[in-house]
């Protein structure tokens, strides 16, 4: 019996694309005026730990305001991501990318925060917080944070 290799190609493609998901969560980004005080940090995703998963690839992280953000050059916040190991230790280099509230964002529209893919090991945690602003900061409405991810299986 001979088997067309292309058929196996499709099967491999199926495995690689097998698990994808999208997860929304509600986050609060405190003004943290002047960059002083503790930044409010919200957990938005914890990587699942299925036995067949080697890692989680996060393709997109978006923020969606529940009321419009009017970008202003005078006062702003910088919204960033942070990544923690399963033991709660922060990575020295957080995921790349930010959203700055100087850029307007209409209610129910989304802005992508990450500028490259993010790899999480099973059980690791992704958070969002305010990591910088001017001396005053700006009030930020509630944000919906959406995580689009792929479970990369052990093969």
């Amino acid at each position, binding site marked *: 019996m001979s088997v*067309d290799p292309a058929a196996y190609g499709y099967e491999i493609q199926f495995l690689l694309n097998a698990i994808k*998901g*999208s997860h929304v969560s509600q986050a609060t980004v405190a003004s943290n005026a002047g960059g002083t005080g503790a930044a409010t940090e919200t957990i938005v995703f914890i990587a699942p730990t299925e036995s067949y998963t080697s890692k989680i690839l996060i393709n*997109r992280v978006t923020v969606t305001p529940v009321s419009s953000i009017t970008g202003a050059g005078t006062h702003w916040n910088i919204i960033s991501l942070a990544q923690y190991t399963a033991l709660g230790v922060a990575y020295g280099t957080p995921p790349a990318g930010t959203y700055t509230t100087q850029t307007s964002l209409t209610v129910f529209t989304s802005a992508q925060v990450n500028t490259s893919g993010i790899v999480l090991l099973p059980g690791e945690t992704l958070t969002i917080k305010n990591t910088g602003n001017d001396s005053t900061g700006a009030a930020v409405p509630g944000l919906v944070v959406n995580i689009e991810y792929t479970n990369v299986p052990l093969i």
Partner: protein
Amino acid sequence: MPVNQTVTDTTGYMLNVVQASDASPATIALNAGGTGAATETVVFIAPVSPNESYINVNRVTVTPTSAITGAGTHWNIVSMALYKTDGSAYATPPAGTYTTQTSLGKYVSKNIATATGGFAMKPGEVLTIKNTGNDSTGAATPALVVNVEYSIIPYI
């Protein structure tokens, strides 16, 4: 025996229809008498993957965190709304509602998406839930968990 490529294509398409679900908490504000702004909660955003053509939402269930005792006198109507990627709403929202005149036990789920086969969302579109109607008084509604079951339909 060679494998028939046409058959493989069909099988691959079927197997690649990925199904998943996403649960999120939602608050249904009283909005008594239909006046005032209805509190609206985003419950799902269709993923944007390079190999998908659209998302099919198969079920949208509401699950109360404490029991709802249906009452004929005062009620809320829980509905869905769908927004395009530019933030504008579709004129016709997804079909189906849950009215709190119907009792619903704690942790019992009810599907409110009643269209046969569910409904489609394009990548990046936003699904919300809110109170769209009630009697003159409305009814306090406990926190709801909204679960969205969906399939990712790939390009083939």
